[in-house]
């Protein structure tokens, strides 16, 4: 295996609704910032890969517009995933293993504000025969999961609110967060349910942002970053789809992914200092903490998705944030997690490490 590291990360502010910029205009400054921070030019990039989704953008082939921010001329080696850009990063990491190039640029752009009503969009992600025709509320599957998690004793409404309080407090240190502040548990628990036992604060606020990660291999990584965040292990796995045949209180795919990632990395989650988890709902922190066997790690020091969830960039931001903690010397080992689908159906984990 080649040693591959995050050498640069940039992100635009998470906005509830950006009504000023098109896809390329949101993305381009972020690409510039990430490329500049790595001290490279566009021509130094050997491979570009991105993640976005037409259902959020509201039109087909939307990602083509984002390519204008990459400058695909002369022609580039390029690919795209129609899901969270963390999966694009996985593709970049795989590509760098081939040894055909040393530097890959990964971007994610998600504009969750463009759909006027996510209740119209989210059911399309469900089984088209047994689920989508019922048109469940956007948070309904997560609500079933939260309810099951509470009944299984994994968390409580109080515990979920405490997660939110901690994340929003942490987000006060993150200028790019969409939501942050000092709130108290009692105040949160006064709010009505949106899909019980979920209240509005339990649901990651959807919005718009772009994120860019530059990956580099071996000597290039050492050259481009003072303290590269080495990707020591990366894996992702899929669970079955229909919620009625899943144990919603566990995340077998996360468990499996971390097992494989730890095997590659040579260290486990008990060794990580911080973890950035793609928690689209507060109750998912408990499920993920169990599946990942996290103990002692600081979870979501950036505030995490509960402080801002730009769709399809959220998972990539977790990797960028985890890497930032290493690159800034705040952590020696870190974990990043990304998810796709309803109730944590598909999960990706990434173990990162700084030079000793």
């Amino acid at each position, binding site marked *: 295996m080649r040693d591959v590291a995050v050498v640069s990360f940039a992100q635009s502010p998470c906005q509830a609704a950006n009504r000023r910029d098109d896809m390329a205009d949101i993305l381009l400054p972020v690409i510039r910032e990430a490329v500049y921070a790595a001290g490279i030019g566009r021509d130094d990039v050997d491979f570009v890969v991105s993640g976005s989704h037409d259902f959020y953008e509201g039109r087909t082939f939307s990602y083509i517009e984002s390519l204008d921010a990459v400058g695909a001329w002369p*022609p580039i080696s390029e690919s795209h995933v*129609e899901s969270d850009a963390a999966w694009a990063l996985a593709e970049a990491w795989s590509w760098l293993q081939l040894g055909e190039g040393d530097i890959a640029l990964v971007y994610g752009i998600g504009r969750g504000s463009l759909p006027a009503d996510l209740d119209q969009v989210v059911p399309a992600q469900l089984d088209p025969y047994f689920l989508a025709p019922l048109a469940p509320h956007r948070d309904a599957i997560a609500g079933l999961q939260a309810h099951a998690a509470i009944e299984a004793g994994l968390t409580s409404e109080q515990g979920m609110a405490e997660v939110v309080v901690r994340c929003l407090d942490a987000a006060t240190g993150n200028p790019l967060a969409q939501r942050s502040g000092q709130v108290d548990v009692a105040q949160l628990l006064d709010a009505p349910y949106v899909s019980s036992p979920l209240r509005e604060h339990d649901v990651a606020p959807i919005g718009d942002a772009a994120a860019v990660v530059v990956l580099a291999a071996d000597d290039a990584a050492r050259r481009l970053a003072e303290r590269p965040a080495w990707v020591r292990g990366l894996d992702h796995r899929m669970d079955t789809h229909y919620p009625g045949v899943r144990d919603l209180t566990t995340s077998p795919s996360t468990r499996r992914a971390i097992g494989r990632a730890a095997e590659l990395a040579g260290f486990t989650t008990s060794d990580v200092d911080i973890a950035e988890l793609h928690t689209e709902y507060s109750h998912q922190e408990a499920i993920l903490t169990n599946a990942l066997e996290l103990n002692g790690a600081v979870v979501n020091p950036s505030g995490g998705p509960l402080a801002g969830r730009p769709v399809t960039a959220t998972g990539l931001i977790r990797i960028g944030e985890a890497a930032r903690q290493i690159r800034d010397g705040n952590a020696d080992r870190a974990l990043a997690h990304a998810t796709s689908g309803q109730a944590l159906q598909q999960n990706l984990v990434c173990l990162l490490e700084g030079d000793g």
Partner: protein
Amino acid sequence: MSRRVAVTGVGQSKQAKRREVSIGAMVREAVTAAMADAELTFADIDAVVLSKTPDLFDGVMNPELYLADAMGAVGLPVTRVFTGGSVGGHAAIFGAHLVQAGLAERVLVVAYSKESEGNFTWALSRGLPFSAPLGAGAGGHFAPVIREYIRRSGAPEHIGWQVAVNHRLNAVRNPYAHVHRPDITVEEVRDSRMLWDPIRYLESCPSSDGSCAIVVTGEEHAGHTPRPPAWIHGMAWRTETGHFAGRDEVNPVAGQQCAADAYRQAGIDDPAAQVDVAELYIPYSWYEPIWLENIGLAEVGGSWKLVEDGRTMFDGALPVNPSGGVLSGNPTGATGLLRFAEAALQVRGLAGEHQVDARRAIGHAMGGASQFHALWVVGSEKPEAA
């Protein structure tokens, strides 16, 4: 290449206007066939790659989630690739990369489209705010490019008709093809309805339901079945921006560079002489001469003479799309992978009635406004080690 990689399983469904099955069941048809060909079970697979055209076309968002069971993908890494019409090629190459990089031993690459369910011509006809709905339609983008090619090359108009006939006659040999017209003639194509002048109805691809799957494995597992593998000799993808000043869409540089990179890996310096058969992404008949030039199988301006001389026919020196190609079946999400899979079938000697004499074959796919290009060279011989 760092590790030799082979295709050991190929499966596809019947292509048709409307398949009376669920999406999952149609995907499973191809998956089952590919797994049976490779003589593997789901437990042997390390990763799954899914190729699919825009989700809005069939209204299932992130279909990899719903299809997890149909693809046997539970517990596995699943990557949903999307790069316009070239997506099937990109998916095949990414699957091969996973094996080549040593990250997987056996990868299942799956592709499908089931667009008969939604009237997307209607749905897309209304356009976005501030856009100018000119009424150009699906071919309105490609037809002007074809006109420009004809002007540059001076090709006579019957070239397009002849390609349409060649591919449809080839399709008669392919039971999976959507369009079967054994009696088609040049006159019939010529007299068929003009759609986007210079494109006539019979020079255009259909819209089909259908699926395709392949299994890609590392060298160590390539001898797992008595059927020979298709060795990947070279593979590449390239992208260029769709609209910038001075862009040449007739002969896009990205396509040239994509092919050149794959040939370099394959040790090919004279592709026209060293490639035996090509499965190219030809949605309108004139794209046969256009792509032949773009990927270096013919001299610029001269490829139409290969058509004229019958060299690209089934019995010709360089048969193009012996499967019948996109003109005979177009499940868009799977169309690119079908080209790659058909190339593999040819060098494995498993193409059945549409088998030609082939030791080395090209699979090719393109997407967007000829912006996305993917190509692989597969061969019956194990390639030299890197």
